[in-house]
């Protein structure tokens, strides 16, 4: 059950964009109202994968700059693959994998 409501007039114009109330209160005091819904953007796979790619680059940045970091050679190869990934035919279906 919604706890937020949009109040309207008879013409459908919004008179109060969002109030907090039980539905019983809204029904008793307002003739025209509807449950408030929060707009959410649609995110494509390409966007979510590019965001994942960015996060991986940030998380491996310290390793790339530290000469004795464990598995550093593979991390450097992995980072190069991450950078090239968005322009490749594997994007966005197949993520690069860090070697061991």
């Amino acid at each position: 059950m919604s706890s937020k409501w949009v109040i309207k007039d008879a013409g459908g114009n919004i008179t109060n964009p969002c109030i907090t109330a039980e539905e019983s209160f809204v029904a008793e005091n307002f003739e025209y109202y509807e449950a408030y819904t929060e707009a959410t953007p649609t995110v494509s796979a390409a966007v979510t994968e590019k965001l994942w790619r960015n996060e991986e680059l940030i998380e491996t940045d310290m390793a790339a700059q530290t000469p004795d970091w464990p598995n550093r050679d593979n991390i450097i190869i992995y980072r190069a693959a991450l950078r090239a990934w968005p322009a490749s035919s594997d994007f966005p279906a197949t993520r690069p994998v860090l070697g061991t």
Partner: protein
Amino acid sequence: MPYAFGAAAGGKTYPQYFITKSQTWVPPEDGNICIHVIGGGGSGAVGSTVYGAGAAGAYGKIASLAVTTAGSFTLVVGSGGTKRWGYNGVIDGVSGGNSTIAGTGITGTLTCGGGEGGIQSSAANAGGGAVSGSANEGWAGFSGGIGVVTGGAVGVYATGAHDTGTDYIGARTDAPIGGILMSRYGTICGGERGGNWASNMNGSATRLAIHGEDLCGGGYAYTSVGVNSFSGNGGIGAGAGGCKGNNYIYLHSGYGGHGIILIQYLPG
């Protein structure tokens, strides 16, 4: 049930009620009350153009009103504007809701408008909520602070403050400090600090700006290299900070602070 906290004076307790959800309120005892009303704050905008902070809701007050247990009041509490998020493009913030009071001994409906949502434009700032309604019962108040980079604040003694481009910290309310739970005997209190900002220099993949304290604006967030960036929520009734960043970074603006109605029984 509204939150009720008693304030003692001269051996008698004078309750006060923090109304956070719309309701019909019947005075539990005869006496004189002070009513404080605050509209909801606007949420921040997201995008790569400017910051676009939310504005604060208006503040209004009836300093003293005689009530009896036979009276009744319709109290409507405006919500804060909900946050916006996205990963590219420009999305303006959402306006806060209006808080209103009406009932026995009050002429018409008295309104404290919600603050506007943040605007992703260098040509305009979000406007603070306005006070409206008959002044017959001594109803008076002030518009909320506008939203610029950081969220606007609720003004109790003058129009609400906004950031002036000097420190970019969320605007502070002019209400006495200590937090709203320190309110007593016709005075409403607020927080001491607006929200601090977050930017690239904070390091890590996620930028988290700080929320505003009660009645104070939220901080802004900016990043060009992170993954997530969150601006700060507004405190009660206050505007949220704007969120700016490059494409392919999740940008989240803050929520506007919810409105509130505070009813205080008065000594004497």
